């Protein structure tokens, strides 16, 4: 039995992970995915017996933060093992092979599993000059198109592949687009975030591995169980919002007392993610808990949605210049209207009163 033919169960055992720990993982995953508890044994069986599914990880215009997010956990977690299990075929950052060997590995994986492999994408796709981002001389968009052709489904890891992310932000010099703008005929699941929460990434994969299909998605193709509620609604600082207790600056009394960060530009109310519940770094904290407002990194166009530090209740396009210009136009129109009314008044005043002119009937009788 070669190493690649081991089931996940074999690997767990080899690593000395207890059955209890695995069961706990499955129970937790089921709970996270809002699956009924009766599904726990099914998930356990399915995961345990998984041989390495073919997964091709494509990295385009990205920063590798999404990969780091999964890999950089302190202990060798089950999450990272699932990740390792699935992602051995082709992943720039972590695969052992390089250069032609690497591309060869990808080709073989594609040929052997045509129609069944899973594609994971991190990074946005440039549509401008193909030279902006290439791998082994092939433009990202070409790679995506032909790798996607044989894919069973595509998972967009991170905001860049899901919505365009930072490369897509104004002025978007590379004409970057999201994967869903290029690929229209494959099931796509978006797992946005900059980066996404590790547990969210692996839970989505676990769901796919256990059930062979993607979890229920919302209108932006995000798994509903993780992206169904906004951060604000589940934020532990929410009571301060309701009482109208806001931090006014990052070092005032309010900030020290842990009051709501709305006034400091927190985007929690409009950001749909599970940060407030799952948190980061093994549940240590999340940005708001650390004292900074949510940036809304898992939302489309988060980089262009006004300053991170402007409250949501402020206008984004209003500025003194526009108002002044409007003022000038208003003065012009007003002056014209006034002048028109004035000349009309003068005209009426100057004309001989009709009351003193004979009516037609009177004229005829004369």
């Amino acid at each position, binding site marked *: 039995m070669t190493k690649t033919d081991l089931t996940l169960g074999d690997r767990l055992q080899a690593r000395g992970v207890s059955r209890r720990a695995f069961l706990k993982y499955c129970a937790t995953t089921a709970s996270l995915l809002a699956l009924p508890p009766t599904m726990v044994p099914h998930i356990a069986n399915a995961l345990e017996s998984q041989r390495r599914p073919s997964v091709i990880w494509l990295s385009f215009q990205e920063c590798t933060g999404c990969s780091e997010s999964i890999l950089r956990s302190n202990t060798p977690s089950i999450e990272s093992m699932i990740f390792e299990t699935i992602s051995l075929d082709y992943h720039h950052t972590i695969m052992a092979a390089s250069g032609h060997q690497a591309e060869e590995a990808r080709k073989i994986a594609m040929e052997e599993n045509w129609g069944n492999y899973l594609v994971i994408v991190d990074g946005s796709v440039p549509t401008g000059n193909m030279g902006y981002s290439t791998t082994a001389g092939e433009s990202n968009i070409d790679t995506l198109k032909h790798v996607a052709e044989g894919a069973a489904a595509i998972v967009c890891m991170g905001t860049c592949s899901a919505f365009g992310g930072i490369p897509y932000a104004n002025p978007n010099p590379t004409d970057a687009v999201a994967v869903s703008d290029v690929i229209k005929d494959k099931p796509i699941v978006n797992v946005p975030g900059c980066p996404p929460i590790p547990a969210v990434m692996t839970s989505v994969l676990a769901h796919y591995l256990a059930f062979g299909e993607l979890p229920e998605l919302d209108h932006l193709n995000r798994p509903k169980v993780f992206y169904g509620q906004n951060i604000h609604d589940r934020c532990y600082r929410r009571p301060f919002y309701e009482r109208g207790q806001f931090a006014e600056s990052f070092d005032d009394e309010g900030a020290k007392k842990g009051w709501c960060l709305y006034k400091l530009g927190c985007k929690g109310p409009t950001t749909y993610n599970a940060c407030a519940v799952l948190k980061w770094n093994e549940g240590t904290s999340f940005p708001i808990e650390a004292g900074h407002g949510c940036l809304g990194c898992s939302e489309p166009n988060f980089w262009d949605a006004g300053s991170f530090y402007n409250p949501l209740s402020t206008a984004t396009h209003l500025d003194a210049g526009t108002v002044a210009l409007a003022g000038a136009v208003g003065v012009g129109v007003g002056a014209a209207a006034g002048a028109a009314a004035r000349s009309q008044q003068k005209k009426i005043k100057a004309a001989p*009163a009709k009351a003193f002119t004979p009516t037609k009937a009177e004229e005829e009788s004369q």
Partner: protein
Amino acid sequence: MTEVITKQEREEAFAMFYGMAASIGELADPAPEMTDEERVERAKEVFLKGIDNNVAVQLDACLHCGACAQACQFFIGTEDPKYTPIHKLDLLKKVYKRELSPLSWLLKPFTPDITVEDLRNQVELVYDSCTMCGRCNMVCPSAINIGDLVSLNRSAMAAAGLAPAELRYMRDGQEADGTIFGADEDLFMFRIQDIQQKLGFEIPLNKKGADVLLMTSGLDIHLFADATGGAIETLHHMGVDYTLATDAYEGANFGSLSGYDATKKKLTKHSTEAIEALGVKTVIVPECGHSYPALRFGAAEAMGRPVNFEVMTVSEYFGRAVMDGRLKLEKKSHPKPIALHDPCKVGRWGGVFDEPREILKACGYDLHETESNRQYNFCCGGGAANFLLPSADKLKRVGYRVKMGEIEAAGAEELVVSCGSCRMNFEVGKVKAGDSIPVESLAAIIAAHLPKKETVEGDKV
């Protein structure tokens, strides 16, 4: 006081006069013939001439809150929505929006032009159901001058040939010879001689350079001779250098109430020229509501320049005299509480409030103020010449009822008025309602409280 007219004489005159007034509509010449277009055109012209910056701002300040309805005795009495004062300005607003508003470029497509039907429907609203008393002005949160703008509407109606026949008759008559109700110079002279005879002293006539000119009105000449007589007797008593004038005796101005602005100006101009020819310093207009603003505020407008004589109404002149001690009145015992009616044109539109009250105080009256008094006073119900409109009979009764309700609530058993048409309207209202409260002229009351000659200080005669 010397009685210049007995109660019986007055009642007879009243019956005769009322009969005459009731038929003037039939006596009127036929309304001028006009095409529909001509009517609309002429009405619009009046509206547009009347809209200046002030009117525009006020029309743009209306919120349709409906408070004005709650100040209007015709709405209060009928609860009929169409009598809501601001509704009476809808045509004016339409014309303003279409033709003159700064937003007219924008509003014109959404604002239909006024039609001759609109004008015809407007007649009842600005004549019968509005005496331009201006009480609505006082409640309006935006302080819109609805009263004056209804007056502008009357002018538009008149220009469109739609003024009621009665007012047309009055105006035509005064336009022709300056008189009303046939109170021509002969009748005036007859009445003066009659009063002179009863008072027992000579009444100066056409005296150039006199200090004071006393005017009267057709109504007083016919009916309320006690008011004129009272004023003359008091002036004589005070030793004022006064005169009456055969060329300027008529204070009433039926151009003003009917909406015929040209006639209004012409009449005022005529009186003003006569007054200036006499060279008097002060003119006392009679107890006739609208004659006060017509001359006090209209003279300069009619002449197109300021005039240099004072205009005062009877109650104002004598009230001032009482206040600064030139006129001492004899305090008498009056057990019956009395109510004072502030005529709209003299009170709310003229500012004469304290003077009549001082007079009543000096006479020893127990004045019971009505709940609405001074600038908040209710109209008698038939002001602005409405007492001449038979079509408004029902509304006049409604208005009278509201007014009389307050007087009764004040516990007054007597009413004093210093306006002939108010008095007329009260008298008619009393007859129709079967009320019996006495209605007195303030001028007559003053005369009745003149102390005996020899006790008066400063009597120069």
